């Protein structure tokens, strides 16, 4: 270990600002890169599910099991 105490570690030999600023922004960027696709996936799935429901309602004829599953959920199983 190259530091005697925890305070010394935090002070980084007078370079605390530079070191912690770099690692702070680094952590932020890595979290951002990781979280962004998770949020995107959620909104994509919601949008596509909505579109599927709309398609089924427009067609009235549901020839796909998948779509039926969604519709019955949506309208409380009326179909």
């Amino acid at each position, binding site marked *: *270990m*190259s*530091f005697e105490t925890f305070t010394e*570690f935090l002070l*980084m*030999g*007078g*370079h605390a600002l*530079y*070191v912690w*600023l*770099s*690692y702070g*922004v*680094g952590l932020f*960027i*890595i979290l*951002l*890169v*990781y979280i*962004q*696709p*998770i949020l*995107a*996936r959620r909104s*994509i*799935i*919601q949008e*596509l*599910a909505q*579109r*599927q429901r709309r398609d089924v309602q427009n067609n009235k004829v549901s020839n*796909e099991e*998948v*779509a039926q*599953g*969604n519709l019955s*959920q949506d309208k409380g199983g009326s179909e």
Partner: protein
Amino acid sequence: MNWTWFYKLGSPKWFYETANKLLPWFLWIGVLMLVIGTVWGLVFAPEDYQQGNSFRIIYLHVPSAILAQSCYMMMAVAAIISLVWKMKLADMFIASAAPIGAAFTFLALFTGAVWGKPTWGTWWVWDARLTAMLVLLFLYFGVIALKSALENIDLASRASAILVLVGVVNIPIIKYSVEWWNTLHQPATFTLTEKPAMPPEMWMPLLVMVLGMYCFFTAVALMRMKNEILLRERRTKWVKTIISEDIKR
């Protein structure tokens, strides 16, 4: 030789399922290596006799800079595949990798500036290496902008692939700028042919960080490609099944 894997790669469904299986491995191994490398570099690596502790920025700066450049090279390979074989997945990779590449180019520039202040006495100089990295950032922005501006997917994929290939000239400029011109920036830390100038206690955490970055990149690129596949293959039956199963949960 068996070429079926190449045709399979062209199948978004197969790719989606394989990505699902590989993703957690890349993600957790990557995160683990990044944590180990950071703690190792920040706490255990010896301090530099000239730069003191500010040198610890290297453990973030060099891996993100390496990743920023190799991400672009991967995009260039994908661009060729996309132009020649019209493989959809190659184009999806370009769309997915560009924002990640931009993020890590920004991080390399930012940590470089913060490191430059105590070491060179300035945040920024119009040094060849630094300027070429800034050009790389704008190339990434260009690809992202082109992708979002063009509605027609075929046109967008062709245009962005051409832009990526044109921008490849920048990569050797970044790499050799420290040799061609008198720059403030120091030469490469890692080369394939020579031993690093640093002692192993210093470069080993750096190597762990570089490998961790690659794993993390692979994981987030797969996550983004899965999103792209869902969007572009939304009319297929298997995607509809995934959507309806996911919404039930």
